[in-house]
């Protein structure tokens, strides 16, 4: 068994403020796993960080093919950061296909670690290389480390008696991780422990020992090879004091829904049909049985939302989670919930569309669908979380509004938020305000469509309560009694009341805050997952002497009350979106301002540079 090498800093250490690393390999190479282990070590070290997993929709695309490349990017810093980084400082390419797909993202002079063993004639051909890039001069602009990752990992793994060939081969991601851990000064102790916890009980512990050997071998390789010139250190960041954990958007969403149900004192019911990238929320909630959470894997998207409506009707917190194609299927049911004025949470973890689109890639293309994707005037509340950790708070906001205003709420997350992770200050549950939304129980003068004078929320009584028996449905309701009504004036009134009820939510949400001057030349107005890139771009623009303001929308329907005043105070309102201009259209329509879009629909989140360039372009020259 190999000894754990000490990760000693060599004499020449580069101190850096921020480093971005990308691991890339076949979808079966374990790049997500390696990335996540590096992330945990980074969290433990005390950097701020942000990650960007990027993987194909195919579980196992043909080995060595361009389509099968999976990657994981992490950016870590001594400063507070908000994005997973623009350009990587280092790329680990486990095969020619990974190199081919990701090399264009790598700036000149960056560190390139390649698995030399994988550059065989067959793999080069699959990746479309006419000649071996390790042998011609096509990589001369990079600092290339040619590491025999596969063979060295296998040799290290095979020191463990009884390890199978395939299991030895599967240790190569840990070898790569060991190598990178040495270069970027990450402790491997946490990963060694993780391997024991994860694999310790499999095949008498041989799998764990083999992977630990490979990890140590990676460190040793880096230590003994002449890599001294690339040893890099990023000092810990000065995060706000407190207790932190790593969280992805989907994890935070599940935790937020559960927490909200506790704050409201109601049961949580989650009806869902598996769909990328929302499924992890179902997976997470399915492990909360001991919290009394009921998850239901429905036969389709429509059954999923139907079951959530049924649960809400009975007084639980009915939630359905999906992605855009699923929302398309649920539209009629959401309309029913609007007509019945029923609490309901619809989580849409957006992905590239239309139709099946690119299931694992990110987009914000469902905003107009959330607002208008139903027949007739059918207003719902729409909330969009702005960071992975904010998914927790957005879920609580959604439940609060849904119960107190007796309305469906659509939560718009996206694939980027769902999968990206960041250090997250652990919330103190005991300090969160309760959600006060009692069910109506008094039979005296009960009318299902009698309304609260402030919110216009209707009287919400549920089955089981004596004396308030009533019938609901998708037919138009008479004001007050809720009886079926075809009266023309009543429909006019009810249509206006449903809209007014949503509009009045603006009285119960915070006003939008402007970061920077309250008026001026350029306001960057963002929503959803673009928040981090915008924040960083604003910071960089100011550092370059450009005065610019920003504001971020979490509540998109209704808009915060002061939004109209704010956008009218700027000569240019710049709206970055991962769509072709949904919010831009809404802002123009609502406030008659000449909003300009920054629109990116490549399936990737914005880089800071892209937003910065647009800010500079729209700012007056000094």
């Amino acid at each position: 068994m190999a000894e754990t090498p000490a990760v000693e800093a060599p004499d020449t250490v580069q101190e850096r403020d921020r480093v971005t690393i990308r691991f890339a390999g076949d979808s079966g190479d374990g790049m997500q796993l390696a990335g996540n282990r590096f992330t945990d070590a980074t969290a433990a070290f005390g950097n701020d960080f942000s990650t960007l997993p990027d993987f194909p929709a195919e579980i196992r695309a043909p080995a060595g093919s361009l389509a099968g490349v999976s990657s994981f990017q992490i950016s870590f810093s001594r400063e507070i950061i908000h994005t997973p980084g623009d350009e990587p400082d280092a790329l680990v390419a486990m095969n020619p296909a990974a190199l081919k797909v990701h090399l264009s993202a790598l700036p000149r002079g960056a560190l390139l670690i390649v698995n030399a063993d994988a550059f065989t004639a067959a793999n080069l051909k699959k990746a479309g290389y006419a000649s071996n890039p390790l042998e011609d001069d096509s990589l001369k602009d990079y600092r290339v480390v040619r590491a025999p990752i596969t063979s060295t990992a296998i040799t290290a793994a095979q020191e463990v008696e009884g390890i199978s060939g395939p299991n030895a081969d599967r240790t190569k991601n840990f070898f790569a991780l060991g190598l990178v851990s040495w270069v970027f000064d990450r402790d491997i102790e946490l990963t060694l422990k993780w391997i024991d916890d994860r694999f310790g009980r499999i095949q008498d512990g041989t799998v764990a020992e083999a992977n630990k050997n490979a990890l140590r071998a990676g460190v040793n390789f880096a230590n003994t090879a002449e890599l001294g010139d690339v040893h890099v250190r990023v000092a810990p960041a000065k995060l706000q004091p407190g207790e932190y954990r790593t969280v992805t958007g989907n994890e935070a969403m599940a935790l937020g829904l559960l927490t909200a149900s506790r704050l409201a004192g109601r049961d949580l019911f989650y009806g869902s049909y598996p769909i990328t990238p929302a499924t992890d929320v179902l997976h997470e909630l399915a492990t909360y049985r001991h919290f009394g959470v009921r998850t239901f894997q429905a036969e389709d998207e429509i059954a999923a939302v139907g079951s959530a409506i049924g649960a809400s009707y009975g007084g639980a917190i009915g939630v359905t989670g999906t992605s855009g194609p699923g929302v398309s299927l649920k539209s009629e049911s959401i309309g029913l919930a609007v007509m019945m004025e029923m609490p309901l949470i619809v989580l849409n973890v957006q992905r590239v569309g239309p139709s099946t689109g690119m299931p694992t890639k990110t987009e914000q293309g469902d905003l107009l669908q959330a607002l208008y994707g139903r027949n007739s005037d059918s207003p719902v509340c729409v909330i969009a979380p702005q960071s992975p950790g904010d998914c927790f708070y957005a879920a609580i906001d959604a439940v609060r509004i849904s119960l107190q205003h007796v309305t469906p709420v659509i939560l718009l997350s996206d694939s980027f938020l769902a999968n990206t992770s960041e250090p997250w200050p652990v919330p103190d549950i005991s300090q969160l305000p309760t959600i006060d939304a009692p069910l109506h129980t008094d039979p005296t003068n009960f009318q299902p469509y009698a309304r609260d004078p402030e919110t216009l929320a209707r009287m919400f009584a549920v089955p089981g309560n004596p004396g308030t028996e009533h019938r609901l449905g998708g037919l138009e309701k008479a004001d007050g009694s809720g009886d079926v009504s075809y009266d023309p004036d009543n429909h006019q009134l009810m249509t206006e009341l449903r809209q007014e009820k949503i509009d009045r939510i603006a009285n119960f949400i915070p006003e939008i805050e402007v970061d920077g001057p309250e008026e001026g030349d350029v306001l960057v107005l963002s929503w959803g997952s673009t928040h981090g890139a915008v924040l960083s771009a604003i910071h960089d623009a100011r550092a370059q002497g450009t005065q610019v303001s920003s504001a971020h929308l979490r509540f998109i329907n209704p808009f915060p009350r002061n939004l109209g005043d704010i956008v009218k105070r700027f000569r240019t309102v710049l709206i970055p979106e991962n769509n072709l201009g949904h919010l831009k259209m809404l802002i123009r329509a609502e406030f008659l301002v000449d909003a300009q879009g920054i629109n990116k629909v490549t399936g990737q989140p914005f880089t800071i540079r892209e937003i910065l360039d647009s800010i500079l372009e729209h700012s007056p020259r000094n």
Partner: protein
Amino acid sequence: MVTQDKPVIDIPVLSKKDFQSDQETRWCPGCGDYSILAQTQKMLPNLGIPREKIVFISGIGCSSRFPYYLNTYGMHSIHGRAPTIATGLKLSRPDLTVFVITGDGDSLSIGGNHFIHTMRRNVDLNVLQFNNQIYGLTKGQYSPTSEIGKVTKSSPLGSIEEPLKPIPLALTTGATFVARTYDTDPKHLADTMEQAARHKGISFVEILQNCNIFNDGAFRDFTDKPVRTERMVYLEHGKPIIFGDDSDKGVALRGTELEVVAANDPDVLIHDATRDNTSLANMMALMNYPEMPVPVGVFRQVDRPTYGEALDAQIADATAKRGEGDLASLVRGGNTWLVE
């Protein structure tokens, strides 16, 4: 032994009137739905369940207006989806008695997927399917149960579709209570619906229902009073399957086929609704006039754990094993670190 650990609550005895809502019934005069509504209102008090604990959820179609006419909780939802809403309600509120009111188009066409999955899961719901073999509310198009050759506005040259048979479909899904009744035998109708309501698990009742406007007399050939004893057979658990004006005919299995034989034939089948194997029930469900008598009654009634019971057992089991969930600790997650 059942021990009574709850205080005895004085539940007022309810009558049919207690279940009538103040809404004017708006089906066509002469519609079979009136009979089903009346028998439902008459049957409900027998269950001894407080009115507020009863919920009727329907889809879309003539039959789905049903909940408006009952003074219970109710929801007239969207086309085909009632079972999904009922499932969510029942799983989160096991204390309620939930009925699904649906039609042949609602449950077998647009809602076909929900129908089969709701059946196989054995959710404790009572599904009453009003089968009139026609689309009534959209004014007379052929339905998934219409016969081949059916001339309607959307099939002026006759339907070219093989009809779907609800009972065999329900049996195939493994449904634990499967029955058929019809609108013009009030006693059998009320009795069958009551048995369905009392069954723990999914109950499916096909109710042959006459649409006197768009498909009048669809079942008349065998349900009309003068002919029904000769052309229908009433299935009763534990009793021989016999019929006829003089109870002189029986049904027997000969080879791989069911045949009509003399009532005193030793091969006459004794109806066993509790049989696990559904093959025989399926063969009986396929008996049709004029070759065979049309069976009504309970085809199958077996005892299985319900979906809700299994779900609640998982919750109880997980809570017993891991202790009641500690939210603060869950939110902290496995790995945390302190920033000073």
